[in-house]
């Protein structure tokens, strides 16, 4: 994992350096600012040093938790990210909960009653949800739920002027996060539902189910205790990948809802050539993906002891 992270840091740094322009060319109006001052600033920030020295300086700082300073926001990147991460995590967790609740409800129903009208309806819904791109879902839901019905706010993460920590504050936050989380969560159920449905169908034909029926276990207990426990195994491993994509998975949604999270910060940092922010976020997103893979591997072993033995 360490060598991969090292390689990744080289790639990210190289990409940042290969991008045209730097923070100074984006921020300062060259007609108004003294070119000598810009040159001085470049020198002072070390933009004229050889590439490898710049890389080593960035990497050593990064390992020690110093991600540099944002040019746009005039504050340390770590503070900036610390400010945004709770929002993105909140959105990510809410959307995951929605996905799992919906997928479990639909998957269990479909697995129990395969090839019925309900099963077909669920399959149709998942098919359509899979085909609708997230940004289309987002703007359509803003149009209906925010503009036409006025149920949800369409921008931001909390109403202005509420004191942190109060009940109103949390209600407002939840109110703001619900629509993006629904868009993100409800349109992502297809693979989970399909997986659960097929697994339940497979398991319900197995011998242990026949045994359970033969000894007179109620149908409810068979499905909820015997089958579901086995069918959860493949789903649990999805969780690892979900955790891996929590930070980087909501870039589009956050931007459309102007929700102040990591994804929105990332796009802004690219627009303003704010490299310190951009590199830190890219590293974090990649690291989370790597971590997600690791968690998925570990979860395999936790839920299925047969894998641990090998």
């Amino acid at each position, binding site marked *: 994992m360490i060598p*991969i992270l090292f*390689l*990744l840091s080289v*790639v990210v740094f190289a*990409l*940042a350096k*290969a*991008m*045209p322009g730097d923070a100074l060319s984006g921020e300062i109006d060259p007609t108004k600012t003294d070119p000598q001052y810009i040159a001085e600033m470049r020198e002072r920030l070390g933009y004229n040093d050889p590439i490898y020295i710049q890389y080593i300086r960035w990497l050593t700082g990064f390992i020690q938790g110093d991600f540099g300073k944002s040019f746009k926001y005039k504050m340390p990147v770590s503070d900036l990210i610390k400010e945004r991460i709770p929002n993105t995590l909140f959105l990510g967790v809410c959307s995951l909960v929605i996905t799992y609740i919906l997928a479990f409800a639909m998957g269990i129903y479909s697995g129990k009653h395969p090839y019925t009208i309900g099963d077909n309806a669920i399959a149709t819904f998942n*098919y*359509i949800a*899979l*085909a*609708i*791109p*997230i*940004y*289309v879902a987002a*703007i*359509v839901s*803003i*149009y209906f739920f925010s*503009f036409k019905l006025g149920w949800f706010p*369409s921008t931001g993460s909390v109403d202005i002027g509420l004191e942190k920590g109060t009940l109103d504050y949390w209600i407002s936050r939840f109110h703001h996060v619900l629509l993006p989380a629904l868009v993100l969560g409800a349109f992502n159920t297809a693979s989970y539902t399909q997986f659960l449905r097929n697994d339940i169908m497979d398991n319900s034909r197995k011998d242990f189910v026949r045994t359970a029926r033969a000894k007179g276990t109620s149908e409810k207990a068979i499905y909820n205790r015997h089958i579901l426990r086995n069918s959860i195994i493949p789903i649990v491993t999805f969780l690892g990948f979900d955790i891996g*994509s929590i930070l*980087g998975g909501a*870039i*589009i949604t956050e*931007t*459309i809802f102007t929700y102040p999270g990591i994804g929105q910060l*990332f*796009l802004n940092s*690219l627009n303003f050539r704010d490299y310190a922010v*951009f590199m830190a*976020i*890219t590293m974090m*997103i*990649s690291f989370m*993906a*790597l971590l997600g893979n690791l968690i998925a591997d570990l979860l395999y072993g936790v839920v299925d002891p047969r894998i641990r033995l090998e």
Partner: protein
Amino acid sequence: MSTATETTRSLAARQKSPSTWAIAARKFRKNRLAMAGLSFILLIVILSFLAPVIATQDITRVHFDQVEKKPSVEHWLGTDNNGRDVLTRLIHGGRISLTIGFSCVALVILIGTLIGAVSGYYGGKIDGLLMRFTDFVLLFPFLPFIIVINAIFIGKISGVWSLIIVISLLGWPGTARLVRGKVLAEKENEYILAAVSIGTKPYKIILKHLLPNVLSVVIVQASLLLAAFIVAETALTFLGFGVPQNIPSWGNMLSEARNSNVLRNKPWMWVPPATVITLTLLSINFMGEGLKDAFNPKSSR
């Protein structure tokens, strides 16, 4: 006795059992949803690529006297902020979006199949090295990396092509893994051993013996990729990081909806591209499912 065997042989020769492709084609034709999807895609493709002939209105000129007109007889789907006809732009936009989609699929299939086949056929060190590399590229977060690399290329190569190259550069690992897995399984067969034993050159074995047998998987994968890449293009353009503003594409048209005034009060500007994108993706998915089903020997429909 000998005549009996002869008749059975000649019978067998006359009633040749249908090939894999014939069976797949028959199954596909029977699948109504898949055929509907295919027809819709063909319709969109034909309309889009005939754009210069059927939609002759100038899409670059700004008409200040016809700004933001509602749908009417003159402009079937209304006009946008610059007085351009929405329908005309929709047709021209389809050309760009589909060109990007199909080009990316072609490039990704080419790269992925090449790497996957070489990796699976040779195995050993080459396999280890190529698969490590594949895993590494797979680790890159897709959307952020495309945005970044595209920002590097965009000034140097014309907008559409830079996006095609960048998506292809990052999109191939899944296909490579898939092809490698299939090749690994396929090369254990005796006919490959036979080909090796008579001294067939490796590239000939890969091209003539292995690839035809993994082609069905690649075709299904291509249909899935087409949907994924059309989504990628439109999403990036929607965010303002894809195709430049002056080129009409479905993503560019949809990005007008980021202006909340347009989103709230002028749905005719963003509903058409949103609908067309969704229908196209739905059709591609139906077609992909149909193909998967058609090539699956276990499904007997």
